[in-house]
C-alpha cells in the first residue's frame, strides 16, 4: 500500500517537533474542562455511598436531607428506575452483572452509590448527603481472588463467582509432556496490585436536557462519539438525541472509556428533573469508587531446551473483576499477545475473571500488559538459572524480520514486526560489557547496580473486528479565506491529535501548519470513532487525514488548472500558494482559488462542485503491530531497599513518527506509570472490603524525583497503513514494568531471586530478597491464601441419560460467552440418524453447519468463521431435557461456555 508516500507539499511537517496547537489555551488557563462549563439553572450532585462491602439494604432515610437548604431532590434506585438503563460494556455487549444506577436492594462494594442528592450548590449537596441514613445488614464480603473461589456469591442470582472464563484445561495435556521433557523448566508467579488510574481530572458530567429526549452532555470521556452512542443505546434513545461535548479532558488512561454508574445516574436525574445537573467527582471518590485496574494473580511456566530455546508454556491467569466490572473480563488478550514476538512452539492457558465485593474492574493503559510482565521477568529468571546472558537468550528466541511472516501458536499472524531489530538497536547503543565491569567493581564496594532488558510487540490501531473499534473520519475544507479546517472523529486527553493531524494535513496539502485549524471533541463533529482506546488514533486518523488532504489537494489543482489553462500535473501547492510549472506569474494564493470556488461558480470546471471540500473515512488493516526493546539501569540500596533509576533507554518502532515530541511524550508518560506500578502505587483492601488508599498521601503517584530522563531510539519501520504509522499510546506502560523489575532483579541477584513477584516492590519487599527473610510480611498472608481450598473445576461432561435423537430437533435459545461478552443466538438442529445439520443465527447473520454427530445426548459439530479472524469453532454440547450446556472451542481464544434452553 502507501508505505512510502512522498509528501505533496514541499514543506516537511511530518517528523518535526511542532509545538502543540492545544498549548495556546491550556497554558493560559483557557481550556474547557467539564467543570469549567456552567449552564443557567444548573444543579449539583453528591452521591451517598455504601460504607460496607456486602449486605442487604434495610432502609434509606432521606427525610433530613430533603429538608436541607438548596436541596431539590434526593433519589434512590426506586426513583431512578423510572429511567430504564441497561448497562453495556465497552464492546456494546450486555453487562452480565446486574448493574443498576444506584444500589438496588443490596450493596456489593464499599463506595457503591446508594443515593444521590441534588442541590443548588455542591456544598449544599454534600451537606445533605451526609444526612442520608442508610441501614445495611452487613454480610461477610468476598474481597480477594482466593475469597472468590470459595466464598459466598457476590451476585446471588449467578451460579458462581466466575465473571468470565476462557482457555482450556485440556490443552494442558498437550503442553505438559513438552514441559516434562524440557531441559529447563522455569516458573514465574506475579501478583499485581490493584491500580487506581488516577487521571488528574476526576470523572465529570454535566447533563443538560433540551427536549423530550434531546440532551447535551459535557463529559470527561475518551471519545464523545462512543459516549454519545453508548448513552443513547443503554437508555434506548435515538442516537441523535444525545450530543456529547468534551473539548478538554484531563487524562483518561482507560477509566473514561465508557460512562459508568455515576455518569449515567446524573444523566437519568437530569431527565427526571428536567434541569441541568452536574457531578464532579472528588479525589476520595476517584481513588476509592472509580473503576480500578489490574489486580491479577498469574503463574507462567516455561520449558527450554538445552540451548535455552523455548519449547512450551502454560499459564494460569486470574483477575479480580470486583462487583461491577465495566465488562466482565478474563483478559484473553494476555494470552493472545504472550508469544507473537517469540518462537514458541506450544502454549496453553486457563484464564478467569472473578467477582468480588470490591470496586469494579476498568481498563488501564495496556490492559493486557501482564503478558509482557510475566514473560519478560520469567525470561530473565531463566537466563540466570540457565547461566546465559539475558540478551543472548532473547536473541535465540525472538522473531526478526527474516523469520516472518509467522503465525503464533494461538493464531496471531505477524509479518512486519521488529522486536529483534529493536533489541539489536538497543544493544548497539548501550555498552553492556562496560556496565558489567562497572557492576562488578561496584559490588566489591557494596553497591548493587542492575541492568534490565525487555522486548515486546503490541497490537495497535485495531479496526473491524470489535464493534467499537472502527475506522476514523476526517472532513476537510479550504475556507473562502484560504485557511484550512479539519473536523475529526478523534479525541485528545492530552494526546495532541489536533497537532499531529494538522502536521499531516499541512504537509500533504502544501499549506502552513498555522493555517490549519482542527476541531474535535464533540459528537456533532466528524463521525463515529472510539477515540483514545488501543493506541489507534495516530495510525487510523493519521491515515484518514493523509488521504483526505491528498483528495483536497487534487480538487484545488483541478480548479487551478482550469483557471490557468494548465494541466493538473503542472500545478503544485506550496506554502499556501498555488504554482503553475514554468509560469511563475500565474501563481495565486489558495485564498484566491477558494474565493472563486465558493463565490464564482461560473468560473469552475463544468460540473465541478463548488467550494473546496474533501472527506475520507479510513479503514486500516485489522491490526498494526508496534515493537520495542527497553533497557534500564538501577542502583538498589542494600541497607534501605530503595531503588534509584540511573538510566532508561527506549528503542521503539512505531513506524512513521509524525511528531517526535508527541511520540516521546506518550512513551514517557507510560513509563512513568510503569515506575509507579513497580515501585509505588497500590490500592489495597482490608479483610472487610475497605479500600485503604483514600488520598494521594496513601496512593503514591510518581513525582519528578521518581522518574529519570528517558533516552529514545526510533526505529521507524513503516507499517502497512496509509502514512505508515504504528500506535504508541500504551507501549511504555506495557514494556516499562518488566524492564524495571528485571533491572532490580539483576541488582539483587547476589542475594537471591525474586521468587514470586509481588507488586509494588516496596523497599520492604526488596529487603525480603536482600535479607532472605519475610521483612515485608508479604509471605505470611500469601501462605494463608495458598491454603485456601483449591478451585472446584467443572465436573467433566458425564454421559446423561440418552435422549431420543430427534428430540434435539428445532430451535434453541443459546448464549455463547465470548471474550467480548455474551453472544445470544438461536441454534437450529435437524437430525438424520446420528448426523446433525442446522444453523446458528445471531443479529449479525446466520451460519449453517452440517456433518455434526449426535452420540447419546452429546452433539458435536464444527463451523468455520471469518471474523474476528479465521478460526474453526468446535461445539461440544450436552442436551438434558429442555436445557443445553457445553462448550465451544474457539481456536486461539480457548474454550467458551455455551448455555441454552429450548426456544
Amino acid at each position, binding site marked *: 500500500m502507501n508505505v512510502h508516500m512522498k509528501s505533496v507539499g514541499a514543506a516537511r511537517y511530518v517528523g518535526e517537533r511542532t509545538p502543540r496547537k492545544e498549548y495556546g489555551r491550556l497554558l493560559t488557563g483557557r481550556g474547557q474542562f467539564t467543570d469549567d462549563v456552567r449552564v443557567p439553572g444548573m444543579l449539583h450532585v453528591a452521591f451517598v455511598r455504601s460504607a460496607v462491602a456486602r449486605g442487604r439494604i434495610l432502609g434509606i432515610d432521606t427525610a433530613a436531607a430533603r429538608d436541607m437548604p438548596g436541596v431539590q431532590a434526593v433519589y434512590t434506585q426506586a426513583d431512578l428506575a423510572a429511567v430504564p438503563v441497561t448497562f453495556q460494556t465497552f464492546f456494546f455487549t450486555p453487562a452480565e452483572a446486574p448493574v443498576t444506577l444506584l444500589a438496588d436492594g443490596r450493596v456489593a462494594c464499599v463506595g457503591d452509590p446508594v443515593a444521590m442528592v441534588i442541590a443548588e450548590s455542591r456544598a449544599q449537596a454534600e451537606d445533605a448527603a451526609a444526612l442520608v441514613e442508610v441501614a445495611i445488614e452487613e454480610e461477610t464480603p468476598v474481597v480477594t481472588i482466593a475469597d472468590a473461589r470459595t466464598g459466598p456469591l457476590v451476585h446471588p442470582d449467578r451460579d458462581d463467582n466466575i465473571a468470565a472464563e476462557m482457555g482450556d484445561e485440556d490443552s494442558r495435556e498437550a503442553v505438559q509432556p513438552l514441559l516434562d521433557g524440557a531441559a529447563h523448566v522455569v516458573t514465574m508467579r506475579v501478583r499485581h496490585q490493584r491500580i487506581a488510574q488516577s487521571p488528574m481530572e476526576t470523572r465529570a458530567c454535566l447533563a443538560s436536557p433540551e427536549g423530550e429526549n434531546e440532551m447535551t452532555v459535557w463529559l470527561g470521556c475518551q471519545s464523545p462519539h462512543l459516549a454519545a452512542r453508548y448513552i443513547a443505546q443503554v437508555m434506548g434513545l435515538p442516537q441523535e438525541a444525545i450530543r456529547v461535548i468534551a473539548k478538554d479532558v484531563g487524562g483518561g488512561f482507560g477509566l473514561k472509556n465508557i460512562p459508568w454508574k455515576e455518569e449515567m445516574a446524573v444523566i437519568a436525574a437530569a431527565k427526571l428533573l428536567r434541569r441541568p445537573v452536574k457531578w464532579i467527582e472528588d479525589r476520595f471518590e476517584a481513588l476509592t469508587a472509580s473503576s480500578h485496574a489490574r489486580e491479577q494473580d498469574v503463574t507462567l511456566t516455561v520449558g527450554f531446551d538445552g540451548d535455552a530455546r523455548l519449547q512450551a508454556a502454560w499459564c494460569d491467569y486470574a483477575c479480580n473483576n470486583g462487583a461491577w466490572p465495566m465488562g466482565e473480563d478474563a483478559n484473553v488478550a494476555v494470552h493472545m499477545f504472550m508469544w507473537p514476538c517469540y518462537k514458541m512452539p506450544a502454549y496453553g492457558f486457563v484464564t478467569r475473571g472473578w467477582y468480588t465485593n470490591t470496586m469494579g474492574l476498568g481498563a488501564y493503559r495496556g490492559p493486557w500488559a501482564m503478558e509482557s510482565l510475566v514473560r519478560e521477568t520469567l525470561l530473565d529468571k531463566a537466563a540466570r538459572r540457565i547461566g546465559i546472558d539475558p540478551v543472548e537468550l532473547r536473541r535465540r528466541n525472538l522473531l526478526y524480520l527474516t523469520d516472518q511472516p509467522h503465525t503464533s501458536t494461538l493464531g496471531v499472524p505477524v509479518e512486519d514486526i521488529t522486536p529483534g531489530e529493536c533489541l539489536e538497536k538497543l544493544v548497539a547503543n548501550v555498552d553492556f560489557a562496560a556496565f558489567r565491569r562497572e557492576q562488578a567493581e561496584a559490588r566489591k564496594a557494596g553497591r548493587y547496580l542492575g541492568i534490565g532488558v525487555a522486548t515486546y510487540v503490541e497490537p495497535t490501531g485495531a479496526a473491524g473486528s470489535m464493534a467499537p473499534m472502527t475506522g476514523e473520519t476526517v472532513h476537510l475544507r479550504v475556507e473562502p479565506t484560504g485557511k484550512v479546517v479539519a473536523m475529526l472523529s478523534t479525541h485528545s486527553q492530552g494526546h495532541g491529535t489536533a497537532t499531529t493531524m494538522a502536521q499531516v494535513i499541512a504537509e500533504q496539502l502544501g499549506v502552513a501548519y498555522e493555517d490549519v485549524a482542527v476541531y474535535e471533541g464533540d459528537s456533532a463533529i466528524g463521525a463515529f470513532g472510539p477515540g483514545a482506546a488501543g493506541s489507534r488514533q495516530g495510525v487510523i486518523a493519521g491515515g484518514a487525514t493523509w488521504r483526505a488532504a491528498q483528495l483536497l489537494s487534487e480538487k484545488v489543482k483541478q480548479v487551478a488548472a482550469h483557471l490557468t489553462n494548465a494541466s493538473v500535473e503542472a500545478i503544485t501547492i506550496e506554502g499556501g500558494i498555488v504554482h503553475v510549472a514554468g509560469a511563475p506569474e500565474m501563481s495565486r494564493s489558495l485564498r484566491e482559488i477558494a474565493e472563486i470556488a465558493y463565490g464564482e461558480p461560473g468560473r469552475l470546471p463544468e460540473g465541478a462542485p463548488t467550494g473546496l471540500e474533501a472527506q475520507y473515512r479510513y479503514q486500516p488493516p485489522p491490526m498494526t503491530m508496534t515493537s520495542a526493546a527497553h533497557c534500564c539501569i538501577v542502583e538498589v540500596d542494600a541497607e534501605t531497599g530503595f531503588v534509584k533509576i540511573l538510566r532508561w533507554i527506549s528503542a521503539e518502532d512505531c513506524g512513521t513518527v509524525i511528531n517526535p515530541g508527541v511520540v516521546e511524550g506518550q512513551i514517557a508518560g507510560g513509563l512513568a506509570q510503569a515506575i509507579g506500578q513497580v515501585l509505588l502505587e497500590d490500592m489495597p483492601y482490608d479483610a472487610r472490603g475497605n479500600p485503604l488508599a483514600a488520598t*494521594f498521601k496513601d496512593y503514591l503517584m510518581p513525582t519528578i524525583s521518581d522518574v529519570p530522563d528517558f533516552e529514545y531510539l526510533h526505529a521507524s519501520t513503516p507499517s502497512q497503513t496509509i502514512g505508515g504509522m504504528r500506535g504508541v499510546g500504551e507501549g511504555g506502560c506495557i514494556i516499562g514494568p518488566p524492564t524495571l523489575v528485571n533491572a532490580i532483579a539483576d541488582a539483587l541477584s547476589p542475594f537471591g531471586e525474586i521468587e514470586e513477584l509481588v507488586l509494588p516492590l516496596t523497599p520492604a519487599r526488596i529487603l525480603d530478597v536482600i535479607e532472605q527473610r519475610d521483612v515485608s510480611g508479604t509471605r505470611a498472608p500469601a501462605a494463608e491464601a495458598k491454603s485456601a481450598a483449591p478451585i472446584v473445576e467443572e465436573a467433566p461432561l458425564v454421559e446423561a441419560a440418552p435422549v431420543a435423537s430427534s428430540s434435539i430437533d428445532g430451535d434453541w435459545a443459546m448464549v455463547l460467552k465470548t471474550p467480548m461478552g455474551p453472544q445470544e443466538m438461536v441454534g437450529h438442529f435437524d437430525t438424520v440418524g446420528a448426523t446433525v445439520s442446522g444453523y446458528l443465527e445471531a443479529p449479525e447473520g446466520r451460519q449453517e453447519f452440517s456433518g455434526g454427530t449426535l452420540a447419546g445426548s452429546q452433539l458435536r459439530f464444527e463451523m468455520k468463521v471469518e471474523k474476528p479472524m479465521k478460526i474453526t469453532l468446535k461445539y461440544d454440547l450436552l442436551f438434558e431435557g429442555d436445557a443445553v450446556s457445553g462448550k465451544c472451542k474457539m481456536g486461539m481464544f480457548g474454550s467458551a461456555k455455551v448455555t441454552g434452553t429450548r426456544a
Partner: protein
Amino acid sequence: MSEHRIELTVNGNRHIARVEARTSLGEFLRDTLGYTGTHLACEHGVCGACTVMVDGDAMRSCLTLAVQADGAAVTTVEGLAQADGTLHPVQQALRDNFGLQCGFCTPGVAITMAAVTRDNEGADSGAMEEGLTQAMSGHICRCTGYQGIRRAIRQLAGVSA
C-alpha cells in the same frame, strides 16, 4: 454558615464579594469569580494543580480559605502572560519542551515555576535548576513523566540539556 465580606485583586482586577467561611480560595476563584484556569484535582494539598500566587507566594488554593485572601493580590494562571499575549517565560519554556499533555495540572505547575524563578532571580544555573526541581516535587503530573517539565526547568535555568 457564616458569611464574610472580602476584597481582593485577582490578576490586577478588583473584586468585592461575600463568601462562606468554609469556601476554599480555589472554589471561590473558579465558581464565584470565574477564573476557571485554576484546577482542583485532589483538594487535599498533595497534587499542586490548584496552586496560585497570594501576595507573590505560591499557595495551594484548595487548602487556603477565600477569607484568608482578604486584602491580598492573587495571581492565577490567567494572569501570567502579558496583556499583549506574550507568554510568561515559564509558559514559553513549557510550550517549547512539550511540558504538558492534558494540561490539567499545568496551571499549578506554571504558577509554582513563576514564583520560584522570581524568587531565585540572579541565582546561578545550578541553584535555579535545583530550586525548580525541588519545587516540582510538590506537583503531580499523570501524563508527561515530567520529561518536558524537566527540560523546561533546564531552559529556564540556562542549563544545556
